[in-house]
């Protein structure tokens, strides 16, 4: 069925809330999934991976800060929230401010492609970000100069590592360049440039987004968990009340 962007977003937020995600995370994940879906990148499959699962992503931020007391190599940390969406970019940004560059590696990523939305959010903020993530299809690459409306999706390499769900985010200031994340030298296919992203967004805005009915049903089922069952007291006293016939 066709849905509007905002309509789908509200449904996704409620479904994620019903699945136990905290407010900030369910807002980010819903925004990400709906944007991905509008871009033709199967955001509904991405959100499916967050529904009814344990929050088990792990992350490490590099480089370690020598000025920090007891600093050595940064340790991998568990995240009770959703690291692999916006948070990875925020952590990389903050470390880049301190150290010139910042790299965040997320292992056990629940839904790695949500990171492309994180990159999209960072597009207008004036810093270069490089992103790669692995999913079943292979290893994906994307980048932004920080002065764009949309990221550049550079494509994916089907032969690259498929063994784990991993996200790598790199942020640099003052012309720094990344190592190990760039797509250069890789055999990638399926690139999408900013103009194509913009066209897909406008198409979604003007025609709506097609969503499989089974996905909608699954989201509604999760959403129902945040609705309070109807009762006589609730119906009588919770909102409007009797009408006076005027």
């Amino acid at each position, binding site marked *: 069925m066709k849905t509007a962007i905002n309509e789908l977003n509200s449904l996704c937020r409620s479904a994620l809330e019903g699945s136990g995600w905290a*407010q900030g995370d369910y807002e980010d994940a819903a925004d990400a999934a709906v944007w991905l879906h509008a871009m033709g990148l199967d955001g509904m499959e991405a959100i499916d991976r967050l529904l009814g699962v344990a929050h088990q992503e792990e992350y490490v931020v590099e480089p370690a800060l020598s000025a920090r007391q007891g600093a050595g190599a940064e340790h991998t940390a568990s995240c009770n929230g959703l690291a692999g969406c916006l948070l990875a970019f925020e952590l990389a940004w903050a470390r880049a401010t301190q150290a010139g560059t910042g790299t965040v590696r997320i292992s056990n990523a629940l839904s790695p492609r949500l990171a492309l939305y994180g990159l999209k959010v960072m597009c207008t903020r004036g810093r270069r970000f490089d992103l790669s993530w692995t999913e079943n299809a292979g290893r994906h690459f994307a980048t932004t100069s920080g002065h764009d409306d949309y990221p550049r999706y550079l494509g994916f390499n089907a032969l690259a590592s498929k063994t784990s769900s991993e996200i790598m985010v790199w942020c640099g200031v003052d012309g720094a360049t990344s190592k190990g994340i760039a797509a250069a030298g890789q055999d990638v296919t399926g690139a999408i440039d900013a103009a194509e992203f913009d066209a897909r967004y406008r198409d979604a805005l003007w025609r709506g987004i097609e969503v499989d009915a089974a996905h909608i049903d699954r989201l509604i089922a999760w959403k*129902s968990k945040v609705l309070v069952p109807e009762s006589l007291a609730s119906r009588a006293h919770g909102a409007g009340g009797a009408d006076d016939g005027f």
Partner: protein
Amino acid sequence: MTIDEIMDEEQQRAQGTGEPARAVAFPCAPLRSPDITNRPERLGAMHGTRLSFVRSLVRRMAHDNWRVRVTSMDLDDNGFGVCIYTIEAYGERYSQVIFSQYLDDADRTDRVIAQKWDITSALICGVPSAADIEYLRGNVPLQEAGRLRANDLVLCRANKSVRNFGYVADCLAAGRQPDPAAFERVGYLIRTTAVYGNGKFGIADYPRLVDSHAFNRGFSAQMCAVFVLRDFSVRLVEHVASRRNPRAAVKLAHSFRRYLGVGNATGLGMAPFLVRHPVQVDQWIRARETALARVLAVEVVERDVFERAMALIARAGRHVAQVHTDHPPEAARNALIIGELPQLARELETTYEQKGMFRWSKLLAWADEQLSCATQEILVTVLIELYPGLVDSIETATPVDDVLTLDPDMSVGELLRLVERDYEWVMNQPAGQRDDDHFFWYRSAAKEEPRLGVRAHEAGAELEQPLDISRQVSRLHTKLKAQEDNARTVAEFVAKCPEYRAIVRRIQTLASRAYGEIRHNLLAQDMLPIDLMRAKLSMFGASKFDPKSNLWVRVTLYQGAPTLDDLSPDMVDDWAFPCVPGGNERGGA
């Protein structure tokens, strides 16, 4: 203005007040503090101003030569059928398709949980084909149970005022005008119970309207749909009267057509909106306060302006006296206003005659000391009304990015200082008020109707909506004070404590938007949802506030507004505080 000139001006609108970039910089007094403006008792006393959405929309309709007309009206003797309006503006064309159907009295309710309505309608892009009309006929009357398309902009419904509609139809059919007293009690023929936009049920998302010159302001498409329904309500009652008695029926007198607005029943849904869209709330209140500050900076008050102020205060008194409400606190407040307005008029007259001494700022300061909050807000509306040249260029609802953004670089220590600076109102609450979580807000499984529960007595508190800003800030403050490393970044903090992510970015985003937060614990037992509803409805431009409980309120939109026939570039925009007319002129046969 030509369309090209209008387009140029639109493109050059500045951020902030949304005024044209070439607008003159006006002198401005200090803005009132959010500690004054954003308290519930103040929000709950607000009135519409000439910056309100309906006022702004009607001005644009008139000045920019909008053409709104009925292009098809196919109603039976009972007024059931279809009516189509076409709206043309700035080279764009829209249509409003209205379905009128029989509704059994047993099915008539204003609540979200209703299933049927007298009138349902959709505002759509372009001109509908026969197939479009059939599609809409199969879906619009179903409202939430139907599906609309990305080309449809607004979905709304209305019920007849049973008492007024039947009475007016009887009068007109008998060849006479209604008694004005009937309109003093209920100043409309129909009332809307929901006006949906922005992606609901498949209709167009708001970002699509950003490229529309007619409807790029927030809620302007919805307000236009209500304006069209107002015209339809009069045509409908005249149609029914005419079919009942073709030889003798008369049209409604123009003064009545102008006085009658569209009723609206508003429940709890508006309150969560205000909490979830703090950037918009800041924009709306800031615009209003900026307008007031410009008026307060006026150095010389001309006599004709003084006389107009006196006339408006008198009109406000008549208007408030004509508000009928069974809600004791509202009735008491109105009585207080009626008692205080003569004092205000006397003070204005006395101080104005002390030549060389008079300033509006002195009058407002006197009112702050001597009058109730409710009467002060009447004065604010009057002051803004006096100077169209100073305030009409301020746009209250230009498109705004209301995304809440995290600043990852900020340190935990800086965040703590920010919380203590901007949320002093949370820290300074008495402990009893701060910890009061008497209520919880929730969505019912019954059509997701927003509801309010009493925590101690009702089930469902574990599913409450996160409208507890005061409580969240308080908890965050405690958490931040317990942090050992104040140099740690906010990004690291929310990575460890994801439950604070939403409130942290809200606080950071609102650091430069002081009017964004309602300064009260919305869970507390003394919280009145109708105060929040009134704030938003006032921004819309509603009048005649008639609370039916603490949870829902009846109002009227477009009361006193120009009719479609009155719209012209030289229209005088003067319809604050509408009062019942005599209706003495005869309606045409």
